[in-house]
C-alpha cells in the first residue's frame, strides 16, 4: 500500500515537471539552448561590442549583385578559396539543426530548389542531408558520420547550438575539406565562411526604435518571447529591453512557446490589468492571436512588431494597425550552396558573410503581400526564391523534400 502511494507521488512529481517542460520547451523553435556557454559566464546576453557592430551594419549599403540579396554582403573581409578550386560535380553534406518551425521549413524548401539549379549546372552532384531534430547530440553524430563515411566534398552546417557544436565543426575543418556554417554560429573561425543576416541585436534595435517612436513615453509594451536560451532570440530581446529601459517604455516579457492559445491568454490578462499600448515579438509566429485578443476584448489595436510571416502581414493589412515586420532574412538558406559554388570555382568570398536584413515597413507591406499572394500563412515574405524553378507552386504546396 505504502509503496503504491510513494510510486504515485513520484510519478505525479515527474509528470508535473514534464507538464511544465511540455509548456515551455518549444520543439518549434530551435535548440535546447547553449547550457555550457550560459552557465559558465552567468547569463548575460547583452554584448555592447556586437550591439554596436550590428547597429552600424543596419545602415550600410550592402555590396554584391543588385536584386539578389542572398549574394550581397556587408563590410566583408574577403577570403581566398583558390586552394579549394576543383572541377566536376561535388557532393555536399548538410548537417541541419532541424526543420521544426515554419521559418526553417520555408528556408529548407528554398535551399532544395537552389540545389536543383546547381545540380543542373553540374556544380553539385548530390546533397546528403541529416536532420538533427533540434538535438545537439544527434547533430554531433551526424557531423561525425559525414566525416567518417559521408564521402563529402564540402560540409554545410546549420548548428543547433553554438558552444556544443564547436568541437564537431572543428573536426570537420580538420579533414581539409571546406566547411560552410550558416544561421547560428560556432566559436571557431575554422570554417571557410560563416553566413548569417546582421543578427538579433539589429532586430531588437529596429523593433524597439519603431515602438519608441510610435508610442508616448510611459507607454506599456508586452513582449512575447518564444523561449529562453537561444542566442538569436535572446539578443533580439536584450537589445529591445535596453532601448525600452532607456526611453521610458514599460515592458513586461513572457515566454509563449509560440502557442497562440498561450499568447491570447497572456494578452487577455494584461488587458484585464490595464491598457496595453504596444506588442513586441521576438518571432512573428502567433502574432494573429495577439491581435485577436485585442479584438475580443473590444479595445483599440496596439502598435505592434511581428515578423515577415504571411499570417502577420495579412492581419496587419486587414486591421490597418500601426506595425512593422522585422525580418530575419530567410533567403540566407540559398547562400551556403552558392558559397559552395564559389569555393569550388576558387573565387574569393566573405570570411564572415553578413547578409542584409531590413524590416518590412508599412509602405512596403502591399508590395510583399502582392508578391506572395497564394502563399500559406506560415510562409516568409522575404524568402528570396522568386527566380528559382518551381516558383510559386513548390512554396504554395509547401512540399517538404
Amino acid at each position: 500500500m505504502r509503496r503504491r502511494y510513494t510510486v504515485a507521488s513520484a510519478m505525479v512529481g515527474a509528470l508535473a515537471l514534464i507538464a511544465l517542460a511540455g509548456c515551455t520547451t518549444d520543439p518549434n523553435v530551435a535548440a535546447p539552448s547553449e547550457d555550457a556557454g550560459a552557465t559558465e559566464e552567468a547569463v548575460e546576453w547583452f554584448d555592447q561590442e556586437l550591439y554596436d557592430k550590428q547597429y552600424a551594419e543596419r545602415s550600410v549599403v550592402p555590396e554584391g549583385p543588385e536584386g539578389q540579396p542572398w549574394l550581397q554582403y556587408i563590410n566583408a573581409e574577403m577570403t581566398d578559396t583558390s586552394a579549394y578550386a576543383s572541377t566536376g560535380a561535388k557532393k555536399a553534406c548538410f548537417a541541419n539543426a532541424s526543420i521544426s518551425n515554419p521559418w526553417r521549413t520555408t528556408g529548407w524548401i528554398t535551399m532544395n530548389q537552389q540545389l536543383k539549379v546547381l545540380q543542373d549546372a553540374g556544380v553539385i552532384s548530390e546533397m546528403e542531408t541529416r536532420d538533427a531534430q533540434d538535438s545537439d547530440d544527434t547533430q554531433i553524430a551526424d557531423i561525425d558520420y559525414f566525416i567518417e563515411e559521408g564521402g563529402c566534398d564540402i560540409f554545410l552546417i546549420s548548428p543547433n547550438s553554438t558552444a556544443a557544436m564547436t568541437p564537431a565543426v572543428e573536426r570537420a575543418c580538420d579533414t581539409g575539406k571546406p566547411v560552410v556554417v550558416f544561421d547560428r554560429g560556432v566559436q571557431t573561425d575554422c570554417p571557410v565562411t560563416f553566413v548569417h543576416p546582421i543578427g538579433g541585436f539589429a532586430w531588437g534595435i529596429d523593433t524597439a526604435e519603431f515602438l519608441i517612436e510610435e508610442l508616448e513615453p510611459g507607454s506599456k509594451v508586452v513582449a512575447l518571447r518564444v523561449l529562453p536560451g537561444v542566442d538569436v532570440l535572446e539578443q533580439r530581446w536584450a537589445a529591445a529591453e535596453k532601448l525600452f529601459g532607456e526611453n521610458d517604455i514599460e515592458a513586461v516579457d513572457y515566454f509563449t512557446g509560440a502557442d497562440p492559445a498561450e499568447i491570447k491568454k497572456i494578452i487577455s490578462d494584461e488587458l484585464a490589468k490595464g491598457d496595453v499600448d504596444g506588442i513586441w515579438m521576438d518571432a512573428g509566429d502567433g502574432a494573429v492571436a495577439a491581435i485577436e485578443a485585442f479584438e475580443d476584448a473590444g479595445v483599440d489595436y496596439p502598435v505592434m512588431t511581428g515578423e515577415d510571416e504571411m499570417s502577420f502581414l495579412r492581419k496587419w493589412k486587414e486591421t490597418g494597425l500601426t506595425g512593422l515586420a522585422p525580418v530575419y532574412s530567410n533567403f540566407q538558406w540559398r547562400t551556403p550552396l552558392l558559397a559552395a559554388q564559389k569555393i569550388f570555382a576558387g573565387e574569393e568570398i566573405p570570411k564572415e558573410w553578413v547578409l542584409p536584413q531590413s524590416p518590412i515597413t508599412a509602405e512596403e507591406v502591399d508590395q510583399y503581400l502582392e508578391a506572395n499572394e497564394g502563399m500559406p500563412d506560415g510562409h516568409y515574405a522575404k524568402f528570396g526564391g522568386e527566380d528559382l524553378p518551381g516558383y510559386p507552386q513548390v512554396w504554395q504546396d509547401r512540399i517538404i523534400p
Partner: protein
Amino acid sequence: MSAVTTPQPTVGQRLAGFGRTLISPRGAVFLLLIVLLIAITLLNPSFAEPSQFIRFVQRVAPVAIVAIGQYFVIVGGEFDLSMGSVVTAQVVIAGNLIGQDESKSLPVLLLMLVFGAVIGLINGLIVTMLKVPSFIVTLGMMLALLGAILYWTGGAATGNPADGFREIGRGGIRDLPVIDILPWSVVVLVVVLALAIWFGRRPFGRTIIALGDNPTTARYSGTRNWWVKTSTFIISSLSATVAGVLLVGYAGVHPSVGRGYEFTAITAVVLGGVVLGGGRGWVVAAAAGAFALEALFTLLNFAGVPSTYRDAVQGAIIILAVAYSATTLRARRKGRALEAPTPQISPDPSSDPATQTSPAPAEEQDAAASARPAPIPSTQRADNETKGGS
C-alpha cells in the same frame, strides 16, 4: 438513499462538514482553487466582475474538457498521452479542410469526431488486445500524429478556418445582462461536464472505476474489460476533439496548439485527487484541477512574476498541492484521519473512505459497501501487482 435517515445536520455541522471536505484530499483542489481566485481578485479586483470571470471560464474550457476525458482513462487505470496531439491534429484538420468555406463546417466536424473516435479505438484496442502498456501506446500515437501533422502541413498551417466555425470557440451569446457575453465554450463545457457526471453514475461509468481499482474482480464480476477500457480511450479522444474545436476558434490554427495538453490534463486530474493507477476519483474535482491550473497561470500573470522563473514557481505550487493531497490521503488510509474527527461512524457519506470513488451520495455508499466490504481488497490488489499477477 434510504440508508440516510439521520437527523438533519445543523448549519454549524454543515459548515464544519464543508470545511472538512475542503481540507480532505478530494476537496484540496477546491481549496486551492478558492485560494487562487481570491488571490487573483486581490491583485486585480476587476477579475471578479462577471464579464471578466466568464471570459476566464471560456479560456479554461478546452483544458477542462481534456482533463475530463483524461479522468476516465486514468480512473480506469491507464494513461492517454496522445490527447495533446489529437487536439493539434483536429485543429490542423479544421484549418486545412474547412478553409474559408463555411458550408464545409458540419461535414468536417463530423469527420473530426469520427477521426477522434478512431484514434481512441486504435489506442484502446492495442492496449487491451495486444497488452501493450498504455503509456507506450499513446506515446507512440502522440509521435505518430505529430509526425503526420508535420508531414501534412510542412510545419506551417495553411490558415485559420472560416469565421463561422471559429465562432464556437471565440464567440458567444452577446448583449446579455450581468455577464455581457455567454461564450459558446462555456456552454459546451457545462454540457460536457454534465454528461460526464451523468455517465459516471451510470453502471458503465461505475464499471470503469471498478476496473481501475481491480481488473481481476471486475472480470470475475462479468465485465468485458477490453470494451470498457477501449471506451475510455474513445471518450478521451472525443473530448480532445471537442477541445480542438474550441481551441481552433479561441486561438487559431498552429502546429503548437494543444502541445503539452496531455500533461496539463494529467496534472489537473491528479490535482483533483484522482489516484494514478485508477479506481479512485471524482470527475468534478478533475475539472476543478484544470481551473486551478489556469488560475495559477493567471495569478502569475497578474502578480508580474518575471518570465525567467515563472515556471519554477508554477511547478513548485503544483508539486506542493499534489503532495498535500497525497499525504492527507495516506494519513487517512492509515487511520489518522485528518479531516474526520469521528473516523468510526460518520453519517456524512463523503467522509467515508469507501466512497472515495464517486461524489454520488448514499446510493454510492450502498453499492460500494456491498461490493467492497473494507479496504482489504485493495491490499490484495497491491500484492497481486507486486507479484505481477492477473
